[in-house]
Each structure stands twice: as structure tokens, then as C-alpha cells.
């Protein structure tokens, strides 16, 4: 025996409201999933950053003309460029997890700050190792040169790490 389907006629406006509600719910569920992902900085994330720095940063770092050019830049200018890159990285990592800027969401801002800090430290570790490898981190160099070289390499590394993280497979 076939059941009779209850046929409810919806007006155009009601249909639109239903679709809108459905999209809102879907967005909320997506946000919950993304929030769960941003919470944990696992060893996998660290490894991904190291690979990203290696894949995208290594060609620049082993290039001698890169290191020949760096002394021509003033430290203050380099710091300003670094801040700009850092700002772009913050925005990029944010859009990796959300579709909007989280100015009102304190919890998300806190988690984002933590993740950016861990990313920065991971890139710094990888970059330091690479700089030792190409002999650009010497004991005899002055602190001025050390900071200049490190910040220049850190810029390249950050961009590489963030670029590679966009290839992350989402479940």
C-alpha cells in the first residue's frame, strides 16, 4: 500500500527562506569542522611546513645572487617588508580556515594567533637549518647581518610554508 505524500505548497518566499536557512546551517556545520581543524597543531602540520619551506624556499636560499643582493637592503626596510609579508600570511592562514575575517570571534582569533606563532617558529627552525647548510649562518658574522639574513630567508620560508599548506587534503 502506497503512502500518500503530504503535499505542502510553498510560496516562493517560503522556499527562499528554507534555502537560506539550509545554507546558514551548512555554513555553521562547516565552521564547526574548520574550528576543529584549527585547534590542533600536529606533527603533520610541522612536517608540512618543513616540506613547504624546502620546496618553495630552497631554490631562493641556495641561489647566491639572493645572498649577494641582501646586504644592499637596509635593516629597517627589511623589517617593514617582513611585517607586510607577515600580515599577508596572517590573512592567508585565516582564509585557509574561514570565509570571512574573524574580528568578533575571540576564540578563533586566539587559535589563529597560536597557529601563526607555531608556523612562524617552525619556519624559523627550518630556515636556520637551511642557512647553516648554505653557510650563511656563521659564528663570526655581526648581529646586524644575522638579523638581516634571517629575516630575508624567513620571508621566503613563510611564503613557501603557506603556499604548500593550501595543498592540504581536506576530508
Amino acid at each position: 500500500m502506497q503512502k500518500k505524500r503530504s503535499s505542502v505548497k510553498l510560496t516562493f518566499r517560503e522556499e527562499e527562506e528554507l534555502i537560506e536557512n539550509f545554507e546558514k546551517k551548512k555554513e555553521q556545520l562547516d565552521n564547526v569542522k574548520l574550528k576543529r581543524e584549527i585547534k590542533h597543531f600536529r606533527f603533520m602540520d610541522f612536517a608540512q611546513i618543513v616540506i613547504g619551506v624546502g620546496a618553495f624556499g630552497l631554490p631562493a636560499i641556495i641561489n647566491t645572487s639572493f645572498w649577494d643582493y641582501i646586504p644592499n637592503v637596509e635593516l629597517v626596510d627589511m623589517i617593514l617588508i617582513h611585517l607586510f609579508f607577515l600580515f599577508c600570511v596572517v590573512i592567508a592562514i585565516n582564509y585557509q580556515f574561514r570565509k570571512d575575517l574573524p574580528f568578533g570571534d575571540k576564540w578563533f582569533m586566539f587559535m589563529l594567533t597560536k597557529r601563526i606563532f607555531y608556523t612562524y617558529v617552525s619556519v624559523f627552525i627550518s630556515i636556520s637549518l637551511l642557512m647553516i647548510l648554505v653557510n650563511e649562518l656563521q659564528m663570526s658574522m655581526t648581529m646586524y647581518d644575522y638579523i638581516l639574513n634571517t629575516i630575508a630567508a624567513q620571508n621566503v620560508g613563510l611564503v613557501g610554508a603557506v603556499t604548500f599548506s593550501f595543498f592540504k587534503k581536506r576530508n
Partner: protein
Amino acid sequence: MTHKSYDKLTHEHFEDNFNIDFLRHVTKRNLVGNFIGSVVGIFLFLYFNLYETFFNANQNLILNFYFGGIIVVFICFMAISKIAGNNIIDSVSIAIRRGLYSFIFLNMFLLIAIIFSGQITLTDTYEKFLFFFLSGQVVVAVFAVTIDLLATIGKN
């Protein structure tokens, strides 16, 4: 008697032989404890100029203390976790994670103090900065890690 703990981030339940929440979780109390310990350590290190007096600016001595200290702290954390009933891989994971938190925080405080104290300038060599920083870490870690752990030992 076993102790049950719950991780709010991973939503996992753990059962240990005794309370090792001070190793499993890092809270605001730990951060405050680490900060207080770091301030004490930095004050002693800079005020008494321990880089010259205690370490004698001897690179080998500094490296021995530094890596020796890291190994001792790591083995202590791992042993506590192992005695609490975790397997060796979990113990290593807990020890590394807990150690890294304290290490990163105290390094941050020390680096800020070195920059603002003016002990290292832009014309100094990287070698001097490195060994000054490492010796500073040894002194600061004694106070910072102790107070950091004491802040949550026995707390649920």
C-alpha cells in the same frame, strides 16, 4: 587508585596511575608561573652577570650545561609519564610537548629581556649572542620550569 583526566581540545579521556595533569595540560597558571620564574632567572642572570662569572664565557661549559639540562628534564618528564602507566611512545610525546611549551615561553621572555637590557648590540658577533643566550636559558630554565610545574602540580 587511578586518576581520570579529560582533554578539552581533543575530547579524549585518559586514565593514569596518579595525577599527571601538570604534564598533560598547559594552562594560564603555567604561563604565569613560567613568567614569574623567567623574571627571577633573568634578574639573577643579568644582575650578577653570570655569563662571565659562573660560565666564564666558556663555550664547552655552556654547551654541556645546556644539552645536559635538556636531557635531564626530558628524561624526568618521560619517566613520570611512564610510571603513571603510559607506554613509551605516549611518554615521549607528552615529554616533548610539555617541554616545548616551557622552552618556547621562557625563550621568548629571555629574548625580550636581552634585547631591552642592551647586553647584545647590532655590532656584536653572532657567536657572542648565541652563547649569551644559551647560558641565559640554562639559568632561567632552573627557575622558570620549576615554578611552571609547581603551578599546577596536584591541581585537577
